[in-house]
């Protein structure tokens, strides 16, 4: 049986950074990933990563404290303040470390790392490499993995976390896609860095086809609580045609949002000083309002206009955006405005963990988008997610190293075998019936329900209707039949499990969002349009029980900043 001291699940930024932290401390660590690490969705991040380096001439007074304030205000005060400070204080060091490892950041004339303005930030503090920041960071971390000889098991698909009868994590069970075999991998610590869940919204998301959220669902099934997943970020600018991301950097560089009348409509919603650089929740709601009130182009979308930036700036700072527009919609943004709509982008919530990635199960950690520390609260600022992955990836790796130090280095076979049996049972029963339902049809309908009933604007009646539809989909899912019987590269198996995960997480989201009778950050209810700190300044915790998700609440760690009305 395979054994490593630490197993990291996921090869994106958080996972690789955790693995490097462990490896540099001399621990036996391996990364298990369903994709080759460089294929991870971290690489699609565009606009940048925040750190108060104060390199920008307009940002000389920036400090980690101010970064923390912006983060906490952006979170609509649901972030845990100490965690936010940990992140913003670590940020300059983390960025410099990535630079020292070769990350090709763009530069200012003086040779320092370039920084651009981003939404909801008081200072221009978003460090960037053109509009390919995620790609550069991911390549750099993969390069460091090559340098440090980090072991990677790629295209291995984790299907179960092994937690023994004493509630201690013992490893994972995975499917080797190449062979179709189930493999047990023992470990004293497991770090989940499995990424986001955007595909719950079907095709209406910026997320990769592989960002399905199964990691979060798996942790949930294993009895680890999940936190705040009713908060879903809708990115204001995604391509009308296929929801590919158009970075916030477009607006950071000076791009306009305009409606069908050619009006910069953000002036209606935020101050003249802020305009397009409001936080994402507000800009998305404003854009959706424009479209709903009939000021969208053809009633369907608005424009992101970059033309006034000029060809040189677009080609230098936003070459990837231009490439995507030309390749996918046949429009050159130097000449024409880009048709955009808001769509699902990021899950603020995730596996409940602390500032060191620890969950309530000893030896089980979470980091990155699948985790909820929480630093983003109910609305994440652009440029903070890449930062979170690296800061908390590293912290998890270091904490796990300390945790495994005095543990016996051998697999706990009984626990792993039990998990493997459970996974086998799941594979046979979850969507493994002989009914007539087609998994892809259920997946598509699920996406529609989420878009239509749990979108940017929510109301009780719409959500209740959606909740009912979700229940019906879960019933129908029981009648799904396997459609591919092959062994190697059997995606049907994988996707059925992912769909089961989606159906489970969306069930939680519906309950949590209906319960939360207030509007906070990305969770906006038309029937309760004000924030309600007296009743709702608290995190939602979701626990798996045989009777369905059980909800409880957890205090928000306040600190230096008293909750105040968010004004931009």
């Amino acid at each position, binding site marked *: 049986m395979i054994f490593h001291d630490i197993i990291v699940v996921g090869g994106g930024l958080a996972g690789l950074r955790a693995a490097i932290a462990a490896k540099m401390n001399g621990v036996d660590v391996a990364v298990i990933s369903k994709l080759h690490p*460089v294929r991870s969705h971290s690489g699609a991040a565009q606009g940048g990563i925040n750190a108060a380096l104060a390199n920008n001439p307009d940002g000389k007074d920036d400090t980690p404290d101010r970064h923390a304030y912006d983060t906490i205000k952006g979170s609509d005060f649901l972030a845990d303040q100490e965690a936010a400070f940990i992140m913003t204080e670590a940020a300059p060091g983390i960025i410099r470390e990535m630079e020292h490892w*070769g990350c090709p950041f763009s530069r200012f004339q003086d040779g320092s790392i370039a920084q651009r303005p981003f939404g909801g930030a008081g200072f221009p503090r978003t460090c960037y490499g053109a509009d390919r920041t995620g790609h550069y960071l991911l390549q750099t971390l993969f390069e460091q993995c090559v340098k440090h000889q980090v072991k990677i098991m790629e295209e291995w698909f984790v299907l179960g976390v092994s937690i023994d009868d004493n509630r201690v994590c013992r490893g994972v069970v995975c499917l080797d896609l190449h062979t179709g075999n189930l493999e047990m991998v023992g470990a004293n610590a497991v770090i989940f860095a499995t990424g986001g869940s955007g595909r719950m919204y079907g095709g209406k998301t910026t997320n990769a086809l592989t960002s399905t959220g199964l990691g979060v669902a798996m942790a949930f099934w294993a009895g680890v609580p999940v936190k705040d997943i009713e908060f879903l970020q809708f990115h204001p600018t995604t391509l009308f045609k296929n929801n590919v991301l158009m970075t916030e950097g477009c607006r950071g560089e000076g791009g306009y949002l305009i409606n069908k009348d050619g009006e910069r409509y953000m002036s209606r919603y935020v101050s003249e000083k802020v305009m397009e650089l409001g936080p994402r929740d507000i800009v998305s709601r404003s854009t959706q309002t424009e479209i709903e009130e009939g000021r969208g182009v053809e009633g369907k979308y608005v424009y992101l206009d970059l033309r006034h930036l000029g060809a040189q700036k677009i080609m230098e700072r936003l070459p*990837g955006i231009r490439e995507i527009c030309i390749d996918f919609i046949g429009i050159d943004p130097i000449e024409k405005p880009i048709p955009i709509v808001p769509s699902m982008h990021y899950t603020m919530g995730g596996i409940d963990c602390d500032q060191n990635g620890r969950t309530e199960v000893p030896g089980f950690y979470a980091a990155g988008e699948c985790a909820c520390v929480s630093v983003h609260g109910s609305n994440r600022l652009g440029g903070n997610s890449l930062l979170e992955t690296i800061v908390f990836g590293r912290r998890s790796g270091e904490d796990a190293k300390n945790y495994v130090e005095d543990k016996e280095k051998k697999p706990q076979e009984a626990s792993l075998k039990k998990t493997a049996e459970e996974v086998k049972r799941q594979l046979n029963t979850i969507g493994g019936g002989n009914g007539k339902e087609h998994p892809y049809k259920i997946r598509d309908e699920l996406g529609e329900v989420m878009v239509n009933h749990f979108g940017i604007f929510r109301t009780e009646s719409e959500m209740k209707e959606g909740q009912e539809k979700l229940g019906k989909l879960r019933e129908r899912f029981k009648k799904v039949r396997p459609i591919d019987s092959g062994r190697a590269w059997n995606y049907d198996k994988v996707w059925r499990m992912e769909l089961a995960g989606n159906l489970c997480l969306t069930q939680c989201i519906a309950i949590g969002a209906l319960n939360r009778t207030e509007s906070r950050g990305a969770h906006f209810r038309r029937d309760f349009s004000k924030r309600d700190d007296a009743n709702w300044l608290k995190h939602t915790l979701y626990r798996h029980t045989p009777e369905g998700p059980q909800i409880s609440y957890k205090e928000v760690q306040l600190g230096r900043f008293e909750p105040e009305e968010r004004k931009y």
Partner: protein
Amino acid sequence: MAYLKIFRYDPSGGVKPHFQRYELPPEKGMTVLEALFWILENEDPSLAFRCSCREAVCGSCAVHINGEYRLACKTQVDLLGEEITIRPLTHLPLLKDLVVDMKPFFDQYEKIKPYLIPKEEPPENKEYYQSVKDRKKIDTLVDCILCGACYGSCPIAMGDPDYLGPHALSKALRFVQDSRDGGRDQRLAIVATEHGIFRCHTIFNCQKVCPKDIDPTGAIAKLKMKSVGFKIKSMFGFARSAG
């Protein structure tokens, strides 16, 4: 009406290599990746192919489409004519259908030491300063998504499995030209061999197919120039000691 002719092969299921023909629905604006999904979901759930981001940044879906190596996700079906033939990347072991074993490809990449070998200790609480001009020297080279299109298109890679390949060689230049890197001589010693830059016959296929507009042929030519100087210097013992 478009037809897809797809390479099929599944050693684990006893399926011998052959082409299978599928009819596509007359839908406008479909990408090849969407067409593959359409087949998977409507015609044949056993079809294997790789994909992830569907926006041309992850490098998963490079395949051979109508005579050229391209990313399936950004290739429009409408531009390909009535019959579309799809094959996996060549020069790499076949696993199933359009999925190949990328290990040899990444093994070559690892040989060139694809990580910064710092010229000097990093400054404390500061980044290395790099001028805008110096940063420009690694432009586009840093955009490589390691998709393998260049490698598939390279006739040298077909004849020489030890050939480092356009992807690894242009990555070598990415570091050699980085003002922060001190591993120039080490790397030139690795690439200036008969399985490295001198094996390249300047055929330009890699440059033609690169979905990120990188010019590996040009990168290899630059490495050749640099290594000639390096060879002469090392003959006379002037080569910089490896950092």
